[in-house]
């Protein structure tokens, strides 16, 4: 399965025995002279769907407008702040502003700094020349229903989290198993951390003793190019 990450890289994920629950969600930061800003890139409609399922929707003050034929939405939580969402034909881009009564213009000014291309293969948002922005800290997330959660990041951004001990050799890289135990010694969360030359992947099991989790860990392969 090949996808286009927001920074233009190609993400290839193979070998998962069960399909993923849906499209990939990405977190990416844009760093500039005035600090960093986090963006979530998800399949179109996700923000609305997820907040309705989580029961947050009724709390929001919802605003909506149209910008160049696409929807822009403002989901304002009076207690925490405002999520602004640009909804394209295939994917959407969301970011968070602190405070309430944030004008749409603030979000449009941010979006105008990027060249956004939305295709079925994925959305890319590359900083325009002169914006002074660079993209970094990419994280791609997806879920295999009831089995595990898969998080992929570029290998060069994970160099600090690689354990010193030698990992088990797997498919062109190394793998470490990480168990978090409670006071009684029972496994609370079980995860596997895999590093190859292009990605660092964390697979978190939904249930620690699930055999399907082991088979995902033993076969999945993630690459960024």
């Amino acid at each position, binding site marked *: 399965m090949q996808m286009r990450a927001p920074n233009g890289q190609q993400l290839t994920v193979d070998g998962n025995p069960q399909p993923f629950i849906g499209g990939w969600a990405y977190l990416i930061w844009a760093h500039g002279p005035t600090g960093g800003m986090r963006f979530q890139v998800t399949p179109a409609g996700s923000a609305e769907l997820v907040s309705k399922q989580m029961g947050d929707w009724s709390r929001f003050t919802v605003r*909506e*407008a*149209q910008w160049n*034929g696409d929807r822009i939405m403002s989901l304002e939580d009076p207690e925490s702040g405002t999520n602004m969402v640009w909804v394209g034909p295939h994917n959407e881009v969301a970011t968070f502003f602190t405070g309430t009564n944030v004008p749409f*213009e603030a979000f*449009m000014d941010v979006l105008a700094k990027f060249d956004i291309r939305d295709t079925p293969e994925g959305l890319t948002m590359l900083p325009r020349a002169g914006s002074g922005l660079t993209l970094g800290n990419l994280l791609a997330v997806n879920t295999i229903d009831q089995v595990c959660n898969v998080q992929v990041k570029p290998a060069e951004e994970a160099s600090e989290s690689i354990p010193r001990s030698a990992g088990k050799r797997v498919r062109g890289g190394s793998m470490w198993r990480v168990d978090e135990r409670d006071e009684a010694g029972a496994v609370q969360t079980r995860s596997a951390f895999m590093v190859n030359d292009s990605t660092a992947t964390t697979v978190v099991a939904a249930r620690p003793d699930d055999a399907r989790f082991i088979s995902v860990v033993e076969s999945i392969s993630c690459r960024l190019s």
Partner: protein
Amino acid sequence: MRAFLDSLTVLSFLGTVLLLFAFAAMLNMVRELQGKLLQAQAAAPAAPAVRSVDRFGSADGLPTFVLVVSEHCPNCRERAHHLAAVAGPDLSGHAVLLASADRCAEWVAAGEVLPVIDAALVGTVAVGATPTLVKYAADGTEEWRRVVGSDDDLDAFLAVSPSERLSA
């Protein structure tokens, strides 16, 4: 034969010199253009163009609120309906709906909103997102513009109080 080859060498040398001149001239032009671009970029934020539309001026001294909408935009339709509901004697100003498609005029058919269907004017006003509310002073100069995301925002921008809205 020798003389012919010599003349050819001289000619090609001359050609190279001419090319060098042309290249230098082109470099100069590029530098001038770059300089002008930098000047233009520096000047742009310092002197924002005052936008003015004579048509939205009024003789009675009241401001004009112009809601700019686009045809295939459900929010524009809702905002237009709401504008039609609140426009009237309670509103301290004139209400105008600006669009490029005739169909949009039907959205305010019942109220006291003046529909202006003028694609060229929509282009001149040049809003980024729709629906956008633009406020013009009595002399037709633009005071501000804001994207209107909800009926409550429209009320706030028009400074209509919720109690007036209930009676409307």
